[in-house]
């Protein structure tokens, strides 16, 4: 079966971009079912692509690379992806803990970005930037794995009148999120709160901050979705 001349022309116009919106959408749907049509569109795109390549450059108004990297992480954390089984597990734990998972999926993705963005000179230690978006760090958690010590420094955490920030460690083997206690929005919070956890657990875990009633979650479970999230990154010597 060969492509009809009309379909071939439609493929050419698809590649050129001159189809009307309805026609374009219809052809985009058809090409998914019709390999021959899809091949014709690709062939036309390839024929014309040297023109695109020769386009005079225009510098973009901003550096979009960080935003693109964040989107890539977000896509990797979406349920459609299968190479993030660990994240999925964490997500389901959160669901089990009756916590809105949507916010976490987005926030977890940003944690990955933080992991790459962090470079602090404190040998043999780990830090996690706890944040909502890549450009708004709220807390920085520093962890000394040898001692199981954790310190959390506020960077730009808005004060919560009558409420407290609570830090959680999330890791599949732990089951539900475990509280690491209340953290101060105005001063450094320190403590050997991680001594009870395995090194591997501490290293792989996701750290999340929720807003709880003053004094912390009444039942030991997060009472809402995390507002800041981060993963540990090794601090380069």
């Amino acid at each position, binding site marked *: 079966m060969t492509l009809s001349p009309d379909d071939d022309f439609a493929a*050419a116009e698809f590649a050129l*971009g*001159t189809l009307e919106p309805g026609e374009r959408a219809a052809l985009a749907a058809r090409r998914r079912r019709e390999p021959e049509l899809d091949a014709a569109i690709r062939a036309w795109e390839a024929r014309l692509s040297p*023109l*695109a390549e020769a386009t*005079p450059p225009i510098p*973009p108004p901003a550096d979009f*690379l960080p*935003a*693109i990297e964040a989107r890539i992480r977000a896509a990797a954390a979406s349920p459609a992806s299968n190479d993030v089984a660990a994240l999925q597990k964490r997500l389901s734990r959160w669901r089990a803990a009756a916590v809105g998972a949507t916010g976490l999926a987005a926030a977890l993705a940003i944690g990955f970005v933080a992991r790459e963005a962090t470079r602090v000179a404190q040998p043999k230690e780990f830090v996690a930037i706890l944040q909502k978006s890549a450009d708004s760090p709220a807390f920085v958690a520093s962890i000394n794995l040898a001692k199981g010590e954790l310190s959390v420094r506020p960077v730009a955490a808005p004060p919560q009148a009558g409420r407290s920030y609570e830090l959680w460690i999330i890791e599949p083997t732990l089951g539900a999120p475990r509280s690491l206690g209340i953290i101060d929005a105005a001063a450094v919070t320190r403590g050997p709160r991680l001594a009870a956890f395995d090194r591997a657990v501490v290293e792989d875990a996701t750290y999340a901050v929720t807003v709880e009633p003053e004094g912390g979650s009444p039942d030991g479970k997060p009472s809402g979705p995390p507002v800041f999230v981060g993963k540990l990154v090794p601090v380069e010597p």
Partner: protein
Amino acid sequence: MSSADETPKASEAAAASDDLALLLGRVAARDAAAFAALYRATHAVLYGVVARILTRGDASGEALQEAYVRIWEKAGEFDPAKGSPLGWMATIARNRALDEVRRVRPTSLEEMPEGFEPAAETVDPLAARARSERLVALLACLGHLDADKREAVLLAYYRGFSREALARKFGAPTATIKTWLRRSLMQLRECLES
């Protein structure tokens, strides 16, 4: 790419193309550093592609971001036998821009912002820094089209003009434009395959 020789050469284009192909290969293997290098090397060309079609800065930035996410996802599908890496990437960017412009409303001449007139006539592919063999062949074939028809093809390609926008530009019915495009595209293919 640090040649003191200012004249673009096909060999230079080929060398740059090889570099991009290598980077794409590493991106396919999920190499984030290669992706950043690929972005740095190509983002101004890809932005040039989407900004000429979308004209609105925010929409262009959005299309550029979507395009690079797609490039990350599809890097493994790039086939050097079917085109250059930059052409492949630019086509992805262009499709994002076209999807957007066709989704919202057709581009019209009236909507072109003041001071932004890199019309297709001034987008001179001949002035490209380095010309690939494929581009040379395509330009030769475009050269065989009537001037109006060539301009229509270039306006559609570079500026995302719809048939309707082309009809207004050339003062011809859209049916006539469709006929022009059909003849021009078929003639181009024939020429490229000869």
